[in-house]
């Protein structure tokens, strides 16, 4: 009887109201990806590449247009509290889309490597086998990469917007799973690539288990996974807070893994080195932006109450310091340019964590400014790496780059621009970004962090400049690597990245203003 009584109360089901307009950027991205799967099924093989690339770029542009259309609308929480559409969300979504557009131009490049893109013709064929040569000769390609990456873009758009931990978890998986797969598809050095995929996958799944257990603890604490409800419980505690802090610690492990912060950074160099280089650029930029967006939302919306901040801030500050030291010191010892850029990405995660721990609106604005300028520069740097090639793919060993400045002045000069920006030379965008973060940290009263950061920057300047010196002030190798001539798409991507890096260093006020305006609005 009792079961019947329970079910009769739920008999009238009212369909939920879904704000499709506010969700349109993500819906467009996921829709494009699904369309891409249909293209795989129905379009003839020869035309797939063109259709897929065109579709992906149009989808990203349309999604960006949706973000623009939403800019200026009032901040609100939509889809039954699952998604927060506010200034910060829209700024990050716009950034992710711009970065993805540039990254897709580089990913789709075929001119640098004998009319082949960076992906294996068939994922499972044994490298170097007759079967693989046959498939390559026929011009087969893994065009499914583009819809897979679009799925990932959709997940990235949702990740920083998620307003409850379940949506965040699903978005985390939606952005990660396609990336695990694409990591293992490099055309050259397949073994390295597949190992990178395996490591990324196992460690990623391990960390998402921690994320989930943390979410369970927070659910136990607050009775809901909604960040706003958790915030209410933190502000007016009804139970002891041990469960809260254990939950936050476990949840934080999962998020810091995605961010690539220090005790959880072990996957970064391996995966960045093994993955196809254009995908590495995409991951280094876009994943980091999405993950920082999610971290900011959890910490500022869910745990932004003073009593909680006092507990997590010292821990996060320690993480920031360890991250900067690990990134800076280990980057010094690298001989491989992709690994060096990976440690540089870890170092930059450390700077960003300083901004996150400062929790003022000013600091949040500084983080918002830093993310796009960092993302554009790192994509540019990895795009230059794809151009310097040996017989077996890219020449990533630093010794092979000797004298590159004389043999190929333009790529070398472009890389020099990005590296000098990372080193924090004035009149580059990242200098302004660092300055804004340090200023916010000083204003928030943590000069110790700024001191460590400045020391790490000095250390970092050394290894960035070392690459520049190797390129411009040493003699070219007699059997040096060849410099590929890229298509107009990659040239455009590189030009945009370099222009943005310099222009935002000279005249940053527009983006700073936008970041300032966006950072203040956080829907709760």
């Amino acid at each position, binding site marked *: 009887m009792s079961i019947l009584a329970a079910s009769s109360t739920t008999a009238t089901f009212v369909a939920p109201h879904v704000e499709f307009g506010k969700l349109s950027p993500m819906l467009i991205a996921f829709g494009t990806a699904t369309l891409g799967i249909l293209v795989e099924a129905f379009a003839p093989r020869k035309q797939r590449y063109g259709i897929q690339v065109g579709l992906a770029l149009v989808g990203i542009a349309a999604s960006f247009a949706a973000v623009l259309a939403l800019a200026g609308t009032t901040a609100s929480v939509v889809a*039954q509290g699952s998604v927060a559409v506010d200034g910060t969300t829209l700024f990050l979504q716009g950034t992710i889309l711009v970065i993805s557009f540039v990254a897709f131009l580089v990913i789709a490049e075929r001119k640098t490597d004998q009319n082949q893109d960076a992906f294996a013709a068939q994922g499972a064929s044994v490298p170097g086998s007759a079967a693989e040569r046959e498939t390559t000769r026929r011009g087969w390609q893994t065009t499914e990469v583009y819809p*897979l990456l679009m799925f990932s873009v959709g997940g990235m758009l949702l990740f920083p917007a998620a307003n409850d931990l379940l949506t965040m978890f699903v978005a985390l998986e939606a952005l990660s799973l396609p990336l695990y797969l694409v990591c293992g598809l490099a055309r050259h050095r397949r073994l390295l690539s597949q190992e990178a995929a395996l490591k990324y996958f196992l460690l990623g799944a391990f960390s998402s288990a921690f994320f989930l257990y943390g979410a369970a603890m927070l659910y136990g604490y607050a009775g809901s996974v909604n960040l706003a409800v958790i915030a209410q419980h933190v502000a007016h505690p009804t139970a002891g807070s041990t469960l809260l802090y254990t939950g936050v610690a476990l949840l934080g492990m999962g998020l810091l893994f995605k961010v690539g912060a220090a005790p959880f950074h072990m996957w970064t160099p391996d995966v960045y080195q093994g993955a196809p280089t254009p995908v590495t650029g995409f991951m280094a930029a876009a994943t980091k932006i999405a993950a920082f967006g999610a971290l900011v939302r959890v910490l500022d919306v869910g745990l932004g109450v003073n009593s909680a901040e006092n507990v997590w801030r010292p821990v996060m500050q320690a993480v920031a310091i360890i991250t900067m030291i690990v990134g800076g010191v280990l980057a010094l010892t690298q001989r491989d340019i992709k690994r060096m850029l990976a440690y540089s990405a870890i170092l930059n995660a450390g700077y960003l964590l300083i901004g996150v721990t400062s929790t003022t609106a000013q600091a949040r604005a500084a983080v918002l400014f830093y993310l796009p300028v960092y993302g554009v520069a790192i994509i540019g740097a990895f795009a230059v790496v794809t151009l310097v090639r040996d017989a077996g793919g890219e020449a990533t060993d630093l010794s092979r780059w000797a004298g590159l400045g004389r043999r190929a002045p333009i790529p070398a000069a472009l890389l020099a621009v990005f590296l000098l920006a990372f080193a924090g030379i004035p009149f580059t965008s990242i200098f302004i970004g660092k300055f804004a973060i340090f200023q916010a940290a000083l204003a928030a009263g943590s000069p110790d962090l700024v001191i460590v950061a400045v020391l790490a920057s000095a250390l970092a300047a050394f290894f960035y400049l070392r690459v520049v010196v190797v390129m411009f002030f040493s003699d070219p190798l007699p059997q040096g690597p060849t410099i590929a001539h890229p298509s107009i798409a990659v040239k455009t991507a590189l030009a945009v990245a370099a222009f943005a890096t310099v222009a935002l260093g000279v005249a940053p006020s527009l983006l700073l203003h936008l970041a300032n305006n966006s950072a203040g609005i956080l829907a709760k």
Partner: protein
Amino acid sequence: MSHGYLSPTGLEIAFVLIGLVTLGSGLLVVTVKNLVHAALWLLVCMGSIAVEYLLLTAELLAWIQVLIYAGAIIVLFLFGLMLTRAPIGPTEELNVRHRWPALIVGLGAAGTLVTVIVQAYQHTWFDPRGAVPLGSGEALGTQLFKYWVLPFEVLSVLLLAALVGAIVLSRRGRDTEEAEA
């Protein structure tokens, strides 16, 4: 409103028995030397967790647990073990070198978590006769489509991506349609 399936004492006895099975099989998954046996112990573990769900009045979830975990995932694992030619019989793949650090980490983590739970729930009790919503299919479905529509849709997209991606990664050789293209 549900009154539970068993009397309070029966509930406790059932929990203790099933809990022991869960823990024992979990321990065996981690320590057994035969890889195929590890997968089979995982099956036992997942099955006993399904029974725990029943004790917690999560009806539908118990069935999903049996269908997805015991039915699909374990079978996939067994396929995976066979496709990678896992040795039948005991192996030396347990990493002995890491035993002590792992033990310390494990004991530390378990101790911390258990302490946390003691701290948090010292004085909370289930009321076995209390008014608890029953996790029936209808109730769960209503919740799902009332409050969790967006994650649900993203989940479907995620499944599509996983499906397509897995095919892409493991496809090789020629299929008839491709050979003529």
